[in-house]
């Protein structure tokens, strides 16, 4: 490699380095994901539903429902025993709904 080659290499390399830029996503990924073949999305959905059903069955068979009801009852009883009069049953229902929803989302993520 002679001196001219070295200079050319330096010149070109520096030019490319100075012109290198990252391209912002700007919705490109979303566009790509919208065009992913549906076949796989359907399989993915079925897989998620299957896992959810399996989790629900296991939860029931391993006594999860009983445990959950017990813990709710205990919490409720202890709250009453501690004379927490401001406890709103509607709020409690909302909390249960939110927890169930979060549990469902977590299961879907795992699937």
């Amino acid at each position, binding site marked *: 490699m002679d001196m001219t080659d070295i*200079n*050319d*290499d*330096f*010149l*070109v*390399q*520096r*030019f*490319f*380095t100075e*012109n*290198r*830029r*990252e*391209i*912002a*996503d700007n919705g*490109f*990924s979303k*566009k*790509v*994901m919208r*065009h*992913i*073949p549906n076949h*796989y*999305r359907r*399989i*993915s959905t079925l*897989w998620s539903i299957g896992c959810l059903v399996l989790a629900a069955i296991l939860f029931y068979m391993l006594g999860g429902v009983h445990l959950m009801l017990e813990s709710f009852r205990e919490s409720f009883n202890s709250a009453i025993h501690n004379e927490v009069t401001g406890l709103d049953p509607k709020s409690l229902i909302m909390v249960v709904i939110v927890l169930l929803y979060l549990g469902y989302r977590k299961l879907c*993520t795992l*699937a």
Partner: protein
Amino acid sequence: MKQLNDLTLIAQVVVFHNTRAFDQLVKKYQSPMRRFFLHLTCGDSELSDDLAQETFIKAYTNLAAFKNLSSFSTWLYRIAYNEFYDYLRSHKETSGIEEKEVDNQWSITQKNIGEQMDIYNALAVLKEMERTCITLFYMEDQSIEKIAGITGCPAGTVKSHLSRAKEKMATYLKQNGYDGYK
């Protein structure tokens, strides 16, 4: 949160068809892929995005065929390279003009040159293969061996393309006042 590595994400896509995992791969590689196409097309952003999208869709549908013999990025560049040359071939078949004319046509008539950056004008003086090699080498930091793997050319041929491209670009840059770097 710690970024999951490519292989973990690929496994999730292949085994569980987890589209979220693929979404992460798209987000990670969208910039180098679109930049690669932008340079190959001398700044045609619309065409670059179309080709990049096709590349990712092909990668998704063929992900099970990824054998981890090379890195995921090299595999993706190979798909991108094939996508570009498929586009070029179909474009040539419809227009019926020769390679040199396509090169010239691109450098003169392409519409979406974007920011009219000097780099696109400089790349337009090169032939497609030279442009591919020099972009992969200097812009995407790929080694000669990897470029040979991506393009399917022997390493010696890649070196020749690189050498010619470098010479042409250096001449262009000097003619346009870029020789004051030293």
